[in-house]
């Protein structure tokens, strides 16, 4: 595994334990001893069964959550508070419903007091194919369009690191593939470090340079790491048919299958 120079984002032996507010004896360790790094310009996916703490991992990388032990480093610097170098695309609806599409894309620039916020935001709306939709409110846009707005909202700030938490899981298959290709194209142009969380192995392989598998929770931790040596640029729909893709898929699935079953059993038991 080759990692040139300093990594953009690194989680160093981080654990996260949640304590129940009512009963402090009740503890739940979501992730334990996770060490993971994303090089500058690298696209890393984390896959794992449902409830394995993938989002917890991402929230720690974003600085929204403090790790209980271990530390997060951003371009070599230990992270305190919100990760200002990172953009975060959430799984759930995250747009401000009282702002128009343009207003939402502008928000981050406005918070930073950038002078030509409007021009930059308009530019990015065009880039995600929503040039004519700037004055629409989120509820007037389709699910796919809202995700594009979120994408523009994140990318307009030109973050060094992009964190994505199953951003396309709510979309239908066609829209999803379109969005995946768009994200890949935008990423290829700027080469940001991406930490991408998904439960969809196909998506992970099709998009990433590297796929990390997490074990089932509680106390989940990485159990396997695979380099994806498929050629770029890729088309997420076409790449799935290549023999190498199938090989990788089988190899990763070997590792993941038991964990998925374990996670499923736990959910049934709960």
């Amino acid at each position, binding site marked *: 595994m080759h990692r040139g120079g300093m990594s953009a984002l690194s989680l160093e032996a981080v654990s996260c334990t949640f304590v129940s507010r009512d009963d402090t004896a009740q503890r739940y360790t979501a992730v334990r001893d996770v060490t993971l790094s994303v090089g500058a310009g690298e696209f890393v996916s984390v896959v794992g069964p449902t409830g394995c703490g993938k989002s917890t991992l991402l929230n720690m990388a974003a600085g929204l959550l403090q790790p209980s032990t271990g530390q997060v480093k951003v371009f070599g610097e230990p992270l305190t508070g*919100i990760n200002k170098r990172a953009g*975060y695309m959430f799984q*759930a609806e*995250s747009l*401000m419903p*009282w702002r128009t599409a343009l207003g939402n894309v502008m*928000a981050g620039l406005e918070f930073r007091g950038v002078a030509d916020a409007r021009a930059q935001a308009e530019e990015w709306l065009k880039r995600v194919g929503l040039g004519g939709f700037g004055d629409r*409110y989120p*509820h007037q846009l389709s699910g796919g369009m809202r995700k594009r707005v979120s994408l523009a909202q994140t990318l307009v700030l030109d973050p060094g690191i992009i964190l994505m938490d199953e951003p396309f899981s709510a979309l239908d298959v066609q829209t999803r593939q379109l969005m995946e290709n768009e994200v890949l194209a935008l990423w290829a142009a700027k080469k940001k470090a991406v930490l991408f969380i998904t439960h969809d192995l196909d998506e992970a392989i099709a998009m990433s340079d590297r796929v990390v598998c997490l074990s089932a929770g509680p106390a989940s931790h990485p159990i396997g790491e695979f380099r994806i040596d498929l050629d770029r640029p890729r088309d997420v729909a076409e790449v799935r048919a290549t023999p190498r893709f199938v090989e990788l898929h089988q190899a990763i699935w070997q590792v993941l299958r038991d964990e998925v079953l374990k996670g499923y059993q736990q959910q049934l038991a709960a």
Partner: protein
Amino acid sequence: MNKWTLRGWQLALLIAVFVLWHLLTAPGLLPPFLFSDDRQAAFFFGEPLKIFARIWAWFVTNADIYQHLGVTLLETVLAFGIGTVLGLACGLWLALSPLAAAICDPYIKALNSMPRVILAPIFAVWFGLGVASKVALGVTLVFFIVFFNVYQGVKEVSPVVLANARMLGANQRQLLRHVYLPSATSWVFSSLHTSVGLAFVGAVVGEYLGSARGVGYLILQAEGSFDINTVMAGILVLTVFALLLDAVVGRVEKRLMKWQPGTSENEKV
């Protein structure tokens, strides 16, 4: 049914009510079946024609209601404005500082469950019989409606939207301005119809309990001399203005809340 036919039917219903009222109360029109004297119905329920004549005199021939109406509306608007601002400020503050909320919780509940109309005499003592005491009463009514809605609104800000705004670089003040406040405002607007109505109630009840001016004062005076027609005329005028205020609120709400899905659908009925 299209809009105009609907309006037509609504108007027809209104006219029917007044016609029935007239038939049942006008002396000598129908043989008396409830009262021994056919003047008694008119005495207790008023006569629509005389009521309209009274209203006509108020607005056109004498033109002497405007100062009273002006006072009542001024009290309503002031009570509404002050109550809303105070409710908004306190709601935001308590929702964002859990400790203060925990300490104040029982007192807020107590104040809210107290029948606040009973404060009117105290306000009359404190602020006199002028506008201020009515505004104070209206404020106590409006404040809690807005306060609880804002409190709820801030508590129910989507955690994802909040986390997203933080990731986009919003500091505490910007979160307040761009996330909490708009979210709370939507809740305030949902309560606006109620709170304008209550501001109006505060003004009129305040006047009724002691004043020298206002529509509530006119009604009180008329009642003192058993002039039921004037009382009814006052009630009609108040009703029409309450409807107008509500329509204004509806307009404002539609303009400011256009980001919310389905406000236009909610406007029906």
